């Protein structure tokens, strides 16, 4: 057979594309349920990580989530609770006027968790910040990223970076105080956190993300 003729080439390409399309569509739809479950469990893990829940408990995220999180509220821009449930289903990157707020119970104390979403150097970065019931002090944080540079910007996922936030001042009169500054340039240690040396743009991204996302909660903070 002449594999160089025009008609053979066109038919070959068409058949190939159709087969590939079917294979990919089939695989994607048959794995969709499992993938969605994994994404859900992973989100639970991320939320709980900001509460400093131990890795042992995180092995069963579903159960740990039931144990710690009492409500995934939706609040509006005025800080009023719109719904007791449903905050979990709002994707962090699509947060607009409806703000998710997790109300949690850790050893009898109430903690709140707010989601964060912003831009790093190469792609999106996101995280969760948990704070005490006085709405003023940070309890714990969790940050993650899609593709920051390993060894530099990607260090925001490390315990070393995240543990700096605990106990810092979150906000004052609704103005977000918590910030990330250039490594070694901390002046007010009550609310400033050391950035990552060599990961300046990612650190700035974390700072901007804290300002933007937590800024929307201003009315809730003042309540």
């Amino acid at each position: 057979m002449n594999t160089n003729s025009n008609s053979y080439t066109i038919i070959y390409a068409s058949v190939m594309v159709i087969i590939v399309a079917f294979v990919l569509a089939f695989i994607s739809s048959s794995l969709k349920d499992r993938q969605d479950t994994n994404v859900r469990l992973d989100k639970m893990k991320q939320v709980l990580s900001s509460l400093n829940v131990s890795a042992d408990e995180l092995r069963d995220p579903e159960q740990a989530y039931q144990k710690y999180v009492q409500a995934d509220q939706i609040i509006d821009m005025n800080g009023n609770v719109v719904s007791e449930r449903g905050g979990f289903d709002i994707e962090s990157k699509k947060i607009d006027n409806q703000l998710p707020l997790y109300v949690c119970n850790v050893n009898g104390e109430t903690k709140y968790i707010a989601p964060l979403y912003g831009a790093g150097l190469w792609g999106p970065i996101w995280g969760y910040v948990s704070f005490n019931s006085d709405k003023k002090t940070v309890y714990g944080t969790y940050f993650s990223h899609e593709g920051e540079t390993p060894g530099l910007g990607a260090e925001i996922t490390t315990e070393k970076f995240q543990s700096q936030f605990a106990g810092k001042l979150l906000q004052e009169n609704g103005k977000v105080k918590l910030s990330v500054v250039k490594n070694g340039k901390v002046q007010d240690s009550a609310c400033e956190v050391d950035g990552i040396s060599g990961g300046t743009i990612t650190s700035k991204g974390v700072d901007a993300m804290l300002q933007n996302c937590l800024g929307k909660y201003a009315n809730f903070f003042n309540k």
Partner: protein
Amino acid sequence: MELFSKKNKETFLTPLGLNNPVSVQVLGICSALAVTSKLEPALVMGLSVTIIVALANVVISLLRKTIPNRIRIIVQLVVVATLVTIVSQVLKAFAYDVSVQLSVYVGLIITNCILMGRLEAFAMQNGPWESFLDGVGSGLGYALILVIVGFFRELLGSGTLLNFRVIPECAYEYGYLNNGLMVLPPMALIIMACIIWYQRSKNPDLQEKNN
């Protein structure tokens, strides 16, 4: 036909040394710079490329007699992209943590020059079994260089290996400092050049003749 004939062994082993895809053929340099600032991503990337090159080589080798010459590069690209997408979907469903770690690297595999290089240079002319060996060999050869570069960059740049602290804390108290330059991309090129330099000085066959 013998499965492990002398020629097949050669097909498998030369990419690890004398015909290394990175240090001799100078393919796949771009990704070698991007993923080697830590040892772990280097390992993961090396392993994923090995699997994908081997599979793609086999598929192309099976199809090689039917592929129209004028669109062969497109066919190769479609096969690679399909395989990469399938692997990433399966990982997302069955090993979510691994897929999160791989995130961007999976996409990088499609653009890896080693894949196209091996498909075009080897799989189009050889049978499936030889192509499989060639794919595994080339992938491992690539992984080897990545791991060497990643080893030095993580050790000297962060003082850790696979995120375990290797250089003790007390060394820092006596004034030892991590070399920040190691984590930046230029250092990957310099280490790569040192590897090529070393390899060529040991193997006169690889040196260009001065006329």
